[in-house]
């Protein structure tokens, strides 16, 4: 198969995903807008005004904005691919793709692109909402953009792996509830890990979301608890490992072919 047909196939999956996201926008785009508005009102305005500056020169609401945007990116990129791909498995229309000439990497990149786009759309929505509560600075545009992109890719791939192994809808709800949400809350969204004592600071450093939130915060505010080199190594490492797992699952047909 030459590059042309693969590109058309990739575009077809991506377009189908985007159409789906926009068709059911009340399920895909609206919830994050409402949830994040509540976070800004409660944690930013009501609680944040009493906390004051968490880092010298940075107000609490400014401090939590990057983390809240990342929280939206993580849950949406993960949720998009896990529900869409598992839905295709459940409704058996995944067979349309498995019985086609498309190579596995085209299927994977098409679905990941759809999930990343949802993550980026929601990130833009949350960013716009945040402007009603604070002023956003952009200290390092490329770090900001690359971090949000890498984070969306990592969690899209993780959602894909979850969808491949899932046998029922409960299986795709378990990970966000019992893994993603706790890791996000403990990933330095609302506080600096430097405020934690031993051993909690060291334990927090095992949480990959900590690196993503801090890299994004560095891009927007120019402050971070961790080194950017380590943050990029973690994000690229996770993306590469999960992409390898996803491709292997597709090539072997695990959870997809009998």
């Amino acid at each position, binding site marked *: *198969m030459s590059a*042309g*047909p*693969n590109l*058309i*196939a990739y*575009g*077809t*999956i991506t*377009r*189908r995903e985007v*159409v789906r996201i926009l068709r059911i926008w009340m399920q895909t785009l609206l919830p994050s807008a409402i949830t994040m508005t509540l976070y800004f009102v409660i944690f930013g305005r009501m609680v944040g005004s009493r906390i004051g500056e968490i880092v010298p020169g940075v107000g609490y609401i400014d401090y939590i904005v990057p983390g809240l945007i990342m929280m939206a990116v993580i849950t949406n990129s993960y949720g998009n691919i896990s529900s869409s791909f598992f839905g*295709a498995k459940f*409704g*058996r*229309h995944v*067979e*349309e*793709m*498995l*019985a*086609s*000439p*498309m*190579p596995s990497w085209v299927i994977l990149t098409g679905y990941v692109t759809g999930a990343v786009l949802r993550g980026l759309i929601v990130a833009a929505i949350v960013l716009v909402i945040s402007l009603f509560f604070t002023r956003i600075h952009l200290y390092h545009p490329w770090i900001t953009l690359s971090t949000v992109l890498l984070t969306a890719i990592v969690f899209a791939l993780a959602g894909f792996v979850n969808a491949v192994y899932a046998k029922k809808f409960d299986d795709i709800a378990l990970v966000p509830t019992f893994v993603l949400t706790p890791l996000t809350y403990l990933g330095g969204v609302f506080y600096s890990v430097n405020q934690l004592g031993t051993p909690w600071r060291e334990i927090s450093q095992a949480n990959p979301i900590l690196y993503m939130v801090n890299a994004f915060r560095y891009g927007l505010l120019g402050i971070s608890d961790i080194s950017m080199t380590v943050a990029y190594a973690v994000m690229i490492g996770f993306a590469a490992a999960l992409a390898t797992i996803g491709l292997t699952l597709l090539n072997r*047909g695990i959870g997809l*072919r*009998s």
Partner: protein
Amino acid sequence: MTTIPALDVVELKKTYANGVEALKGITLRVEPGDFFALLGPNGAGKSTLIGILSSLVNATSGDAKIFGVSIRQQRSAAMRLIGLVPQEINFNMFEKPFDICVNQAGFYGIPRAEAGVRAEKYLKQLALWDKAFGIARAMSGGMKRRLMIARAMMSEPKLLILDEPTAGVDIEIRRSMWKFISGINAAGTTVILTTHYLEEAEQLCRNIAIIDKGRLIENTGMKSLLSKLDVETFVLDLAQPQAVLPEVAGVRFTRIDEVTLEAEMSREHDLNSMFAALTTRGIAVRSMRNKANRLEELFVRLVETGTTDAAKVAA
């Protein structure tokens, strides 16, 4: 000069994880342009074979070539040659039929503009154009089956595999589907059909394979197979009720009800002698029809005994 077969299956085996041996070494050849029936009782292995050919099931061993292209060595190239109409409805119920067809073409690398033209062509040919922009879920069962045929045609495959395409479809729609598929075959597409409507297979197909318990038990021409059937059964509608079963040499009568009899006889036995014998006994026959589809009779005997010899039944 030897032609490359449309399908060349060699020693294909499939054992599922639970230990079930669905295919125990199938070897099969389908010539280009053929209209081929693949029959077998439920659980015989037909859908597993089709699943392997369409890369939805991983074979345990053996190989299959589509127009000389190995499904195991060159999966993408082989899939490009196949169109599949599966047994179960497997499109996204929340999408529009037009989008389902256009997306399918996209998966095969067909540009969107060309895909739109093809979608219109095949949806019109299958009388679905007026439903093209509604939600697929709202369509009737027959429409959904026709949509799967239109979808399979989007890549204009050289080999079209139809796994029970007319299951649960009323006779009128079934006939329109036969007409469409026959047209596709006449235009050069090789067609493999599995069906439980044996009348369908007898009418449409030129060659036939019968699978049972994962093994091929028959693979021959339709005419050749049907010629093996030596017994035919007729249903006789009598003018008056008949209390006692008549006894006629070479014919075995069974009673359906007071005015209906079944007469099973050798194909070599002529009907005139049976009617003469009935007339002598004062039995008038008002009308007569062939009871069963001939292929159905052969199929049942083949599956029950596993040999074609069993088809020869002494009258």
